[in-house]
């Protein structure tokens, strides 16, 4: 039960990308992920989830800085231009 410092990477993006991104994230070495539904507004306009392919998801991955860096880099390169995408990290302490 010694706490362990890690990064929590939060990815807010379009629902249609779920399967594709999960595959990429696991392939880059993540041990797990958590997904929940969201809606919102950003530079790509309003995303209310009220229409097919119109909602957001939040993908959260806990990992070390290297893993988070790899994921950010990959997603930045492949999806940033064409899709609604916001990524940010914060410091967390794993308590398991």
């Amino acid at each position, binding site marked *: 039960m010694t706490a362990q410092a890690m990064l929590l990477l939060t990815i807010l993006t379009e629902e249609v990308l779920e399967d594709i991104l999960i595959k990429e994230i696991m392939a880059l070495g993540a041990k797990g992920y958590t997904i929940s539904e969201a809606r919102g507004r950003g530079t790509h306009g309003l995303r209310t989830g*009220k229409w097919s392919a119109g909602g957001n998801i939040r993908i959260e991955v806990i990992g070390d800085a290297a893993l988070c860096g790899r994921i950010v880099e990959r997603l930045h390169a492949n999806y940033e231009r*064409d*899709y609604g995408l916001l990524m940010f990290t914060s410091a967390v302490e794993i308590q398991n």
Partner: protein
Amino acid sequence: MNFEPVVLFFVLGVIAGLLRSDLKIPGSIYEALSIFILLAIGLKGGVELAKHQVGDLLVDGLIIVLIGAVIPLVAFPVLRLLGRMSRADSASIAAHYGSVSVVTFSVGITLLGKELLDFEGYLIVYLVLLEIPALMIGVILARHGQGQVRWGKLLHEVFFGKSIYLLAGGLLIGFVAGSEGIKPLDKLFFDLFKGVLALFLLEMGLVASSRIAALREYGAFLAGFAVVMPLFSATLGTFTGWMLGLSVGGTFLLATLYASASYIAAPAAMRIAVPEANPALSIGASLGMTFPFNIFVGIPVYLWMAKTIHASGG
């Protein structure tokens, strides 16, 4: 005018959206309604198909699909040259208009019921067949000379995307079960169909009202396209149906199919296959403009066209 109460539910939804009512249909209910409609239409088509020799329909089907492929191939240069839209946007919108709308088709069937006109039930099969080439043409147009198409992902998205999958699955089950075997399911899938369609139109109205605004940003050209294109496609469909010897009802339904634009299967497929296209444009045009145009103006006009061509030709 051929007035149908179900379309009033669409109006109710649009007004709620415009007046910012807090009315909303939860996402999961929308999903359930669309699963119901796709399955019900598929089952109906399968039951009808079981009454025919499938072989007899093959040639007709091929002709209908080939002529249907003209639609995106005409739409693309119009959007690209007249509308000066980007290659990706033109291709994506062309795919939406080559593809079809199950709900528009359902409103058409509903009108035939009211007019006591019969139609060739197996036409529902073409609902499935028309979708696929349209989406593929869209992708080819977008990628022409750039050659980095994710065909695998796209074909998967198209064939196993829920709309085609449920339509085709319903067709097969209806075909296997036949009209006797399907009886115990009639009470759910056929008797309630029109009521469910009304609720679905309510939700479509809510969404369409938000799309009309999106469309406004992109000016008059796209709005004009969204009205003229279905009229062109319907004309094509009317001639094709008449040539193939379909009944008045069948001719009308084929015209309606051609005239309708997709807003379920195509948006999802294009978002994956042509991500640089702006989805607000294609959905704005097809759902915000063409869909209401079709159910209020188009459908009565297409029925008149089918009656006229049969009267003159007969």
